[in-house]
């Protein structure tokens, strides 16, 4: 789509019935310097993945596939097979159970939701090349990390349907500190 076409598309979008809703949206007396935008135009930034799977993209992967991605793009910092990380800031991906108040906080020992892994890998990893993995690669690496933590099997397929159904071992061990502030 050319820039000109995009402009027409936006104009069309704004001319649609939602315009009426927008006209009511600004409260009385607000300066109104915000520019209306469509959810479609925010899509490139809208990478949040919710615990129920909302926001997960199309695609899929298994631990077997993820092992290859991990070896190529993750192991330099996080260590072979998720152990003995080489970079100071990269914690191990696998550990024994929580042994004290300082952890270890790993996927198997601590994370309450499988979507944390997907969301963080997609938004922040690899550290020096964030948001360069394809959705299939993110699913595959997520599957690999869940698999080496013995939460899923090596050939279990992770996708938008299966990933949020993975029950994390530590899920029920959290206490909301200040529920009255929610």
């Amino acid at each position, binding site marked *: 789509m050319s820039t000109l076409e995009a402009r027409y598309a936006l104009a069309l979008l704004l001319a649609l019935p939602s315009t009426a809703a927008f006209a009511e*949206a600004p409260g009385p007396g607000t300066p109104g310097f915000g*520019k209306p935008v469509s959810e479609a135009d925010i899509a490139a930034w809208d990478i949040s993945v919710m615990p129920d799977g909302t926001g997960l993209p199309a695609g899929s992967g298994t631990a077997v596939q993820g092992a290859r991605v991990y070896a190529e793009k993750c192991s330099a910092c996080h260590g072979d097979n998720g152990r003995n990380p080489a970079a100071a800031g990269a914690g191990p991906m696998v550990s024994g159970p929580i042994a004290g108040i300082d952890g270890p906080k790993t996927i198997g020992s601590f994370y309450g939701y499988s979507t944390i892994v997907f969301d963080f890998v997609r938004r922040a990893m690899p550290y020096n090349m964030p948001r360069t993995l394809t959705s299939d690669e993110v699913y595959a690496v997520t599957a690999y990390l869940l698999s080496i933590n013995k939460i899923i099997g090596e050939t279990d397929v992770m996708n938008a349907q299966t990933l949020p159904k993975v029950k994390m071992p530590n899920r029920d061990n959290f206490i909301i500190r*200040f529920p009255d502030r929610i």
Partner: protein
Amino acid sequence: MGKSNRRGDGGGRQLNAVAGNGLVDRRALLGRGAALAGAMTAGIGTGLTSAAAEPLTDEPWSLETGAVTPPLQTPSRFEKHVVRTLSNPDNEFRNSHARTPHHLLNGSVTPNSLHFSINHSGLPDIDPEKHRLAIHGLVKQPMVYTLEALSRYPMVSQMAFLECGGNSAPMFSPQPFQATAQALHGLVSCAEWTGVRLSTLLEETGIDPKAKWIIAEGADSHALSRSVPMKKALDDAMIALYQNGERLMPGNGYPMRLLLPGYEGNMNVKFLRRLKLVEEPAMSMYEGRTYSQILPGGKAYRFYFLQEVKSFITHPSFGHSLKGPGFYEVSGVAYSGTGRIAKVLVSADAGKSWAEAALQAPVLPKAFTRFRMPWRWDGQPVVLQSRAWDEAGNVQPTRAEFVALRGETKAPPPILGFPNQHFNSITSWRVESSGEIKHVYA
């Protein structure tokens, strides 16, 4: 206090000590030079220096024209030691921190150049012209704001402390680290923030009543993301554009950050580029893992939000050395994420007796309050402590009380790490007869 430097003047008035080991009534500080002079000369071990001053002469800088006035001024070359300490000076592939040198500062405001900063993936070099803030999700109309647009909105200014959830984490160690207030407590600072109330912008986008949380996300390469309750967003949340009167420092979120006064630093998302209204929290890495605290029984706290009532003595503290017996001002900072500081007590005998410190006005909610306590040291070993109360009645715990609930690590943790978070107990400084100061658990 010129008067108090004259030996013997004003000595007619004696103030009784108000707590053990030489703590003097705080009213001695309230502009009553004569009273203070009395306090200094009264009782045993006055220790006032009696040697006369040298005759005064002109130094070279008084006899020549000085340097040109620069456009951006920096501290004197004699203050080069007053800097932040770094956790990752070589920018290795990991996060980097810079800590505020509390033991070298005074007052209640942290200079922007010395405000603490934690960056999980370095400092983004953001062109403010190209930066955008999107507000979307459960709104009536998603909107995008430029910095220029936000700059035209009604603004508010608010003094607010900002504290990393991991501040003071070295005190989870079973043995006290011999370290400065900067090393122990340097991940808290206080500034005046100016910007647009988030509620003003949400009024413009409209809010779907189903919205209970806002996911806030930064423009850094981590796209750092946290979930914030709508309750806080509509209370006192701000899109901060200015810090102590100037644009935000890059390390503090330039060109805009979310400011949630009193809430865990990491939730105050820097480089803010997106706010998504949602029904449930995202359980992002930093709320689902990093800033969830493991409790001694193995369960963990999630959504701690608040930085609870806390104080620590900055003067004197580790790294200082007392120059013999005599008068000193014990001072430090107190703050609470709940509201105003109500009172601060100071002890010089490891908590056996306490006296109320003077609070420097104005005492503002969710901001640093400087406390001051006159003290006449007799040269014997003492343990100095401060303990704060906030206006909601919350009291800062002793370390023993804190550890009984929250535990400690088995071995000393890395002093730069956050093995656990939200540590707010009393800090104890032991002053040796030599004047050296140690960090102790008392």
